[in-house]
């Protein structure tokens, strides 16, 4: 049974024991994998599909998708030092998904014996930190249109459709909750992009131009550090209003 690249370097017996202790579950789209306040003793490792992490506010409009967890990635909950904890977020299947539920206790014991597993976990966590910092910047600083463009491009990587683009089952309300925009704004922005021929749909996917990634450039493509402010500003604004 496949588990995760995290444990790929371990002796066979160790890996088999972890697989034995873990459970593989399937979830329909929009099914809740873990509800906020629910007790859990697992790490959630995505085998296929895509999950999203939802942080709750008080009103219904205050729920926000903070991150997506794709194949081979882990949902790191509130604690790794305790065997069980109460979830502080909700985990939902954004697409039909299969997920390995790995007991935290078993994983921790493995980490104690094999520091390289902890280091691999740490790297996963650091990657997540980097992604979230990037998302924070985009949500804070980009215009609605740039933000939606960038999120659509991210989705082509998180939820690729077989015909290219991203899986059309990812709804506009999911996009809205990830970009911190209202559904109306996302709908209007996407309609506008479609009418301009930038975004198009087929049976499976929503197709997005490659340069939607460029709205994200903190680093200018030519690697200049931008000391030539006027010229750079010009190209930056071109990037941004394409």
């Amino acid at each position, binding site marked *: 049974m496949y588990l995760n690249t995290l444990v790929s370097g371990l002796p066979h017996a160790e890996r088999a024991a972890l697989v034995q202790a873990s459970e593989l579950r399937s979830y329909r789209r929009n099914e809740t994998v873990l509800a906020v306040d629910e007790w859990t003793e697992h790490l959630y490792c995505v085998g296929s599909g895509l999950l999203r992490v939802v942080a709750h506010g*008080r009103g219904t409009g205050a729920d*926000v998708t903070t991150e997506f967890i794709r194949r081979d990635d882990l949902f*790191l909950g509130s604690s*790794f030092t305790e065997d069980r904890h109460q979830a502080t977020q909700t985990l939902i299947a954004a697409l039909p998904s299969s997920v390995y539920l790995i007991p935290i206790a078993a994983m921790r014991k493995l*980490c104690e014996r094999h520091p390289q597993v902890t280091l691999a976990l*740490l790297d996963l966590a650091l990657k997540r930190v980097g992604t979230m910092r990037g998302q*924070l910047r985009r949500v*804070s600083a*980009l215009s609605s249109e740039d933000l939606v463009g960038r999120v659509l491009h991210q989705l082509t990587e998180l939820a690729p459709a077989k015909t290219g683009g991203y899986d059309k089952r990812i709804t506009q309300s999911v996009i809205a909750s990830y970009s*911190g925009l209202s559904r109306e704004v996302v709908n209007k922005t996407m309609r506008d992009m479609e009418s301009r021929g930038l975004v198009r749909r087929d049976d499976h996917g929503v197709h997005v131009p490659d340069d939607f990634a460029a709205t994200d450039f903190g680093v200018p493509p030519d690697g200049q550090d931008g000391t030539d402010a006027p010229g750079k500003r010009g190209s930056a604004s071109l990037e941004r209003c394409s």
Partner: protein
Amino acid sequence: MYLHPLLAKVPPAEREALIKRSELRSYRRNETVMAAQEWTDCIYCVTSGLMRVVEHGSDPSGDVTTDFIRRNDFFLGPSLSEDRYVARQTLVAALPSSAYLIPIPVARKLCEAHPEVAMGLFEFAATRIRALRSQLRKISALSSEDLVSRVLHQLTQLAPASTGGFDKRITQAVIASYTGLSREVVNKIMRDMESRGLVWRDEHAVHVPADFASTDIGGLQADEPKAGGANS
């Protein structure tokens, strides 16, 4: 001498070797600790003061403070498996600060020899993820006023002043870059709070009511928070 809690169980000889191979540096307020797009081969352990992590946009108006690193916390970079990396963010001293610069290979060896250190660093990263989740939610869902209140309250914990409240050297520009609001909006909201007597200043600090913490649970309470209404 400074001793990080993470190293409590590491034998003294190894601890001394670690410190010998690390460099303790001091930074003035607003000094750049690490610049985006430059190579670095260290992780940063803040021993005093406060640093902020800045993500850059395609022009300076797109710069955003994504998180703060306080005393005893780490800036770990993108991975511990490579000896050096190109910084994606800039690290700036938000207050006068000092930090140990620990070479990545040294940190990695320590992790390999002491699983509890690796586990401890992983916990720091997991805590950071939780903080970023919470900040993402706030930025996305709160009204400007609730967001500013919440951030001012956070600052009383991140940058406490000796007289209570938060260190007044934390500028409105920093608050703006952390809230994703313009300086004008932050200035207007803070003035308004001051005129209503919610926020007040002394020689060292900006003082904030305790119930500013609770605006985070709420949706859109535009009304004045009631005294003692921590759960409202």
